[in-house]
């Protein structure tokens, strides 16, 4: 990987301003999240591999052990459609930096991003090192995941496909890493409202981040837990901020929430709004499709929605993957943790407080791989990201990701001229 390649990615971003919109996300987000984060991940792994050394131990006076990291070989990667550029930029750089060849399958809903990026950077890599495989899941994804010539599969998606990929990997005795989504709790303790200041303003935005990327984020903070003594006052501010969201043409830099990526996602979200109501959830704001005029009339727009209910409802337990948050209240730390951990998943979580003790103890007790503390949806390259429980295993981002793409060669060297004496 060359710095030249990285800058080529950077230079073609003008084109990407338009391409990334093909999944409906607003350009405001593309410019401020997808592109800068993607470039950062390429730069990070290009630097991390240069800063790395193997290890050597002298086991005794005549024996030296060398531990060398070697690539696994050919990596299959299957990425989703919610961040077509960023997910590619999470998966490709660590696999390439560690010396592997990659066959990457983009999602069928968003094929153009990977293709156009590769057209720009293909000549940076030797032929055959990076391969983009397009096609439908049953016809391209499954053969890739089950092929005996693949040495490892890295997958981001949902649980049933994850289970199938692990099943195929078991036939080939291959390692896999899985990122399978979540139902992330975002917990607000009463001290956030001790002052009406910049921090409270940040906390309110933190609660409204459920609508970021139309809610199509694995770590969407889709369960909002608010301490009961601030519940009414805090939620009034959250509702006000949610209702101020501008939902319009994704190409307008002022648009905050765009359209859902596809009709089937749109229909799925609407079906969850229905079952939420049937289970008795109260709609605090939103709760329906959003009908815009003109060219946008047939767009897959959903109003940012807040549903109030309890944690046993299906809207609290299933990943809706839309701009929908389910809110409930808790009385104390114990109840907050009980609700937060009552889920099949464990990918992300948020904890907001001005209490220094809570800021350490609560995150430690949450069963999730990433706990954002007084922030949310930050994704720097140098912080490991991945799931507990049914959210998967293995990590993405951070230099520890490189070890998911390689194996250790141990060279055990004897400098002793004398025989063992057995034979």
């Amino acid at each position: 990987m060359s710095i030249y390649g990285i800058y080529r990615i950077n230079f073609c971003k003008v084109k990407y301003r338009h391409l990334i919109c093909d999944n409906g996300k607003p350009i405001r987000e593309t410019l401020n999240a997808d592109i800068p984060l993607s470039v950062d991940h390429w730069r990070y792994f290009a630097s991390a591999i240069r800063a790395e050394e193997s290890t050597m131990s002298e086991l005794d006076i005549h024996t030296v052990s060398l531990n060398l990291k070697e690539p696994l070989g050919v990596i299959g990667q299957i990425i989703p459609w919610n961040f077509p550029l960023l997910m590619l930029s999470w998966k490709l750089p660590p696999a390439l930096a560690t010396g592997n060849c990659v066959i990457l399958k983009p999602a069928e809903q968003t094929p153009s991003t990977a293709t156009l990026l590769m057209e720009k950077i293909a000549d940076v890599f030797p032929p055959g090192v990076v391969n983009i495989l397009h096609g439908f899941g049953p016809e391209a994804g499954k053969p890739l995941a089950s092929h005996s010539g693949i040495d490892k599969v890295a997958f981001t998606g949902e649980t049933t496909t994850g289970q199938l990929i692990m099943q195929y990997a078991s036939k080939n005795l291959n390692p896999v890493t899985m990122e399978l989504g979540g139902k992330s709790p975002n917990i607000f303790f009463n001290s956030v409202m001790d002052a009406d200041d910049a921090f409270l303003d940040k906390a309110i935005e933190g609660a409204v981040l459920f609508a970021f990327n139309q809610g199509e984020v694995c770590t969407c903070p889709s369960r909002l837990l608010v301490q009961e003594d601030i519940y009414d006052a805090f939620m009034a501010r959250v509702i006000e901020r949610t209702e101020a969201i501008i939902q319009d043409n994704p190409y307008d830099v002022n648009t905050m929430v765009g359209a859902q990526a596809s009709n089937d996602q749109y229909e799925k979200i609407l079906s969850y709004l229905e079952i939420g109501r049937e289970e008795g959830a109260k709609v605090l704001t939103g709760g329906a499709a959003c009908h815009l005029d003109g060219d946008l009339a047939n767009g897959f727009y959903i109003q940012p929605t807040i549903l109030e209910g309890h944690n046993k409802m299906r809207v609290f337990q299933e990943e809706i993957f839309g701009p929908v948050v389910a809110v409930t209240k808790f009385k104390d730390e114990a109840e907050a943790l009980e609700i937060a951990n009552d889920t099949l998943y464990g990918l992300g979580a948020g904890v907001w407080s001005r209490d220094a003790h809570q800021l350490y103890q609560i995150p430690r007790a949450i069963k999730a791989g990433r706990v954002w503390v007084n922030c949310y949806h930050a994704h720097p390259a140098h912080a490991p990201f991945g799931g507990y429980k049914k959210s998967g295993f293995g990590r993405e981002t951070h230099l520890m990701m490189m070890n998911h793409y390689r194996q250790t060669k141990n060279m055990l060297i004897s400098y002793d001229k004398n025989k063992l004496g057995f034979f």
Partner: protein
Amino acid sequence: MNYTRVAITEAATSILDQLKAKYGDLIFHQSGGCCDGSSPMVFEEGEMYLDESDILLGQLDGINYYMNQDQFDYWKHTHLTVDVTEGRGASFSLEIPLGVRFIIRSRLLTPEENSELNN
């Protein structure tokens, strides 16, 4: 009265019939999680390893509908209807090349259904 946990629309049955003609025996497995999760997946029978942790919710058009036990614990108070919509899902589900996607429409079980099915 024999109540059911799952049902299927005519439109979905027609897609399923096309798939049966092409692939033979099939199963449904309810997915959870990210992206294309929370949707039913249809596979050739024998494709997916199933065991006692996969609950059989019922049969649709002769096809078994499974869900993992721990997911079922959160879903069992609801009735599921498999429908189909235009769309472009990303998973290994067999209907995807047809440009359609199976989706679930849910309702609460009635008290009568609930007492028969969940007791």
